[in-house]
Every structure is written in structure tokens, then in C-alpha cells.
């Protein structure tokens, strides 16, 4: 084979040199002449009608350059990766703790924080819903006008009823997985400044092109007047795909006509950022007496929190992966994306698959137990192989490495533990 310059070689990371020397300029390290500091006032309550915001005292504080609310957003005041359901700043309804209400730009962070403390917010608290199963009930408090079931993704293959009727083994279990914070080690941060009539952002992000479109849309600017530069980004893991500081700083740079910087504290990062979707999974498996899978019947409920973010995409992935790496002839999956007043859930390493893996692997162990075979045997018996058909009907032609993976793992287990299982 022809030798290539890069492929097959160990290549030095392009940014490693700056990083080991501490010279990399992450967004929070950037200082610009005349730069202002931004802070965000966030909701202390999970569900409320916003009645009034009085910013007068904050505005008159010396050193404060701009105090903006939803009324100051030129265009849509919504953003969202799949559905535009999240306000840049809350206009009328608070849907989660940490929902942004006001942004302030001031000479120092300290002044900006003092300005926040001077803002009077009037709101009327509403009953909130924190459990996705509760949220699906008709009488539950409505997080959004359209109801709490944001979307349903269904998969149907074969004849479920017949398979369960003829099954020797039926395993039915409910699983719950927890919410998870990405906790990238660099909290969200960004700077924005004007370069002529172009607003330039250097920001900690995984999604600069999306950021550009959202900023342009909310600020009513053509795309070529917004430039997003991804600064060195201290981890993301899916959590920096959504909008964080971008729209605030672009808006404030334009309004204050000064460069601005916003660096979240760790607390604010936890409060404002998306999380891994907590799931409720009701998983029913049918198998014959040998442990060969006959059908699965699965209900997946993903708590996407106050806003959709990547919810529908995550739940779609969960539906598709509900069978795990196994061949299942009859499949029924209903995957619900549900709104609650919890923190927004979005993309997070694995994107809905780890939650399902937790469930289907438990199911497989229980099927093995009932069939009287080993956990490895049950997996090999049902493994996807070349020419297997997945739950969505796709025929896998090549690159199906599951059996080989099990064999390697088996050999490793033997080597390390001296036994298998």
C-alpha cells in the first residue's frame, strides 16, 4: 500500500504546543481594550409567569453600560437546535430554574453582579412538573402551550402480539437513568466585539455554524455580519452544541458599542447548560426457551426538561438502538420526548444510546438466566452479524464487529480474571 503523509502516522496535535505552554487563549483569557463584563440574571423558580422587570436602579448604577431584557431582542427571541422553543431572554413565562431574564454589561464583573442585585423581578409562580411520567398526564401543568409530549418516535417491525403469545421467556422490567452534567472543565465563555459592521465572537463552542445562524436570526443581521470563531474549547461532550453565551454577548457588544466578555461560573454552567436526558424505560423482552430473542416491546420516556434542545434527536436514536446489538425479528418501540420544568436535556456523549444500553443489557442477562445459558452465550446467540437485519429493517452488509468484540473481551477476561463471567 502506498505510504501516506498523515494516515497511519502518529501526528502531533496542532494546538498541543500552545496548550502545554499555557499560551492558548481560551475565551475567558481574552482581554480586549475597553472590554465590558457581562452577567446574567436567572430565574430562581422553575415555573412562573413573568409579570414585570424593573431595571431602573441597575441602569443608573455607575459603571453599568447596558441592561437588556427580552424587549431588547431585535428579532425572534427564540433559539433551539431542532425546535426554536427556548427564549434568549424570558418574555412572559419562566420554565426552569436558571431561565435567563436580564443581561447586564458593566465595567467590572463586580459591578455587573451588583447591578443584577438591584433588579426587581415580579413573577407569579405556577405549579411545576418535575417527573416526565407525571408530565404526560392530561392534568399536568403545561410547560409549553402545545402540551408536554413534545414528540413520539415509533418503530414497528413484525408481529409483536404473536411473538409474545408464543414466547417461552418473557422478561419485563422498568428502568430509570439519572440526569447527568457534562462538567466540561472549562465553563462556557465568550467575547464579542465589532469589526466594522461585523460582530465577531470568540467563543467556547462545538457548533460555530449553528451559532452564527442563531445570532444572526435573533439580532436580525445577515449571516455575513456575524462571524463566529471557535476559541480553544475546554471540553464539550455535546454540552456546547447549544447556545450559551453567544446571543447575549453579540447583542451587548452591539448595544454597548464596546467589546464584551461573559464567563460562566461553574455554578452558572451547571444551572444553565443542558444535561444528559434522564430516562424511564419500560422494557419487555420475549425469547424462546433457548434464549433466542423473539420480540421486544419498549416504551422510552426522555425528560428533555424545559426546552427541546436535541431531545427529539436523542429519543430517535434511543428508539433505533432499543434492540441493542442484537437481531430481533419483532419490534415495537415508542420513544417520547417530554417537557418538564427540569433543566434542559440535550446532547451528551452517546446521545440516548447509553441509557438504552443499560436497559437492554440487563434484559439480556435476565433472559440468559431464565434460559439457563451464560451471559456470553445469550449475546452470541442473538448478535448482529453480517447480513443481519436491524430493528428498523436495515440489512447490515459489512463492518459488523460485535461477535469479534465479544471474543476479544472474552479473551481479555480470561487473561485478567482467569475465568469468564
Amino acid at each position, binding site marked *: 500500500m502506498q505510504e501516506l503523509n498523515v494516515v497511519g502516522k*502518529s501526528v*502531533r*496535535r496542532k*494546538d*498541543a*504546543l*500552545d*496548550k*502545554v*505552554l*499555557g*499560551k*492558548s*487563549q*481560551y475565551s*475567558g*483569557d481574552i*482581554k480586549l481594550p475597553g472590554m465590558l463584563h457581562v*452577567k*446574567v*440574571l*436567572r430565574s*430562581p423558580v422553575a415555573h412562573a409567569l413573568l409579570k414585570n422587570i424593573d431595571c431602573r*436602579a441597575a441602569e443608573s448604577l455607575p459603571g453599568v453600560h447596558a441592561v437588556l431584557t427580552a424587549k431588547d431582542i431585535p428579532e425572534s427571541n427564540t433559539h433551539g437546535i431542532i425546535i426554536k422553543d427556548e427564549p434568549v431572554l424570558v418574555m412572559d413565562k419562566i420554565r426552569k430554574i436558571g431561565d435567563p431574564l436580564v443581561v447586564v454589561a458593566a465595567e467590572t*464583573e*463586580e459591578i455587573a*453582579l*451588583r447591578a*443584577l*442585585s*438591584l*433588579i*426587581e*423581578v*415580579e*413573577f407569579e409562580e405556577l405549579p411545576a412538573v418535575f417527573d416526565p411520567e407525571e408530565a404526560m398526564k392530561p392534568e399536568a401543568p403545561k410547560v409549553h402551550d402545545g402540551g408536554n409530549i413534545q414528540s413520539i418516535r415509533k418503530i414497528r417491525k413484525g408481529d409483536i402480539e404473536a411473538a409474545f403469545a408464543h414466547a417461552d421467556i418473557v422478561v419485563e422490567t422498568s428502568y430509570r437513568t439519572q440526569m447527568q452534567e*457534562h*462538567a*466540561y*472543565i*472549562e*465553563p462556557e465563555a465568550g467575547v464579542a466585539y465589532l469589526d466594522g459592521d461585523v460582530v465577531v465572537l470568540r467563543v467556547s463552542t462545538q457548533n460555530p455554524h449553528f451559532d452564527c445562524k442563531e445570532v444572526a436570526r435573533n439580532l436580525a443581521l445577515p449571516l455575513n455580519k456575524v462571524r463566529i470563531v471557535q476559541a*480553544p*474549547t*475546554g*471540553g*464539550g*461532550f455535546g454540552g456546547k452544541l447549544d447556545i450559551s453565551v453567544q446571543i447575549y454577548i453579540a447583542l451587548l457588544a452591539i448595544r454597548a458599542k464596546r467589546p464584551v466578555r461573559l464567563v460562566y*461560573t*461553574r*455554578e*452558572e454552567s451547571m444551572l444553565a447548560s443542558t444535561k444528559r436526558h434522564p430516562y424511564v424505560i419500560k422494557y419487555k423482552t420475549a425469547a424462546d426457551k433457548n434464549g433466542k430473542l423473539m420480540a421486544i416491546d419498549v416504551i422510552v420516556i426522555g425528560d428533555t426538561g424545559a426546552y427541546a434542545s436535541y431531545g427529539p434527536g436523542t429519543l430517535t436514536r434511543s428508539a433505533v438502538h432499543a434492540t441493542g446489538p442484537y437481531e430481533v425479528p419483532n419490534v415495537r418501540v415508542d420513544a417520547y420526548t417530554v417537557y418538564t420544568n427540569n433543566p434542559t436535556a440535550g446532547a451528551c456523549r452517546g446521545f440516548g444510546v447509553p441509557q438504552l444500553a443499560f436497559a437492554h443489557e440487563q434484559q439480556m442477562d435476565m433472559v440468559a438466566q431464565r434460559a439457563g445459558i451464560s451471559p456470553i452465550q445469550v449475546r452470541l446467540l442473538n448478535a448482529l452479524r453480517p447480513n443481519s437485519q436491524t430493528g428498523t429493517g436495515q440489512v447490515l452488509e459489512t463492518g459488523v464487529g460485535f461477535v469479534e468484540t465479544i471474543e476479544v473481551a472474552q479473551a481479555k477476561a480470561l487473561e485478567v480474571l482467569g475465568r469468564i463471567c
Partner: protein
Amino acid sequence: MDVPWKKPGAKLPVLEGDKNMSKQTINFMLNSQKVSAQVESDSRLVDFLHEMGLTGTKLGCGEGDCGACTVIIDGQTANSCLVLAPQIDGKEVTTIEGLGSYEQLHPLQEAFIEEGAVQCGFCTPGMLLSAKALLDENSNPKREEIIRSISGNLCRCTGYTKIANAIEKVVRSKS
């Protein structure tokens, strides 16, 4: 720093920081150079370093959990978010900026690059300083000692194995 909440009807808070607190002068060694500076009594070392333009020290959590702000004070690692700037008066501080330069990388820096021990890079300065403090004290640490020495530094990209490999590489090349 907390984002303060404001509930309706609450009284305006008494503004903090209105009292004119005295600044104090501190003299210390920073990366082998004598420094004299005026600091506010309540400023944290990590913020003070950033004010001085030394932004290589990273702030990750602000409570001593993540180790991104690790510096070396008098030969021992410390979280610079848990140290007040006036505390370093009379001390010797080493930050990532004092470890090496573009012209002359520290062997640890070289090894981190070579071994692929750098990913997002935000934990890297703290990791390097923890490793340096270890090697300064013990030139031939065992693998377990290496791992223990970086146990106060979180790498959320989870690149610990390569980081430990990089440190081990320096140990091996010395011995």
C-alpha cells in the same frame, strides 16, 4: 461568585465593597523573578495571575475540586482558587508560564505532546505542574505514585492513561 437572586418585595441589598479597603503590597518570586504588586485583600491568586496577564492558570470550579488552577507555591502544589493573593507575600510561585518556553520546552511538556496527553487542554497546565512537583521531589516515582500525584487534577476528556504515560516517559528517560 454567586449570581444573586432577587425576589419581588425584597429589600435592596446593602452594597458590598463600598468600604474602601486598603490594598496591600506583596513581594514574591513569580517564575524565578522578583515581583512587587498591589493586591486587594480579597482577590484570589488565580484572578491576580490573570490580571497580571498570566492566563495559563485555568479556573475550572473555584472550589479546589478540579485542579485546573494548580500552581506550585514553595515547592508544593496548591489550588490557586483557594489561595488569597496576599497569602503569597514572601513566597515562591511557579505557574505554567514558568515551566518552559517555545524555545525550550520542559521535558514534561515535550512528553505530553509526544504521548498525546493533551486533548481540550484546559487541565493541561495544572496536570503539568502536579507532575513537575512530583518529579522535583521524587525523580523515580512508581506508576502508582504518578497516578496519585495527579489525583487532584480532573481531566474531563478522561485522558488519564496518556497523561500518566507521558509522565512515566520523562521518568524513564531520566533514569
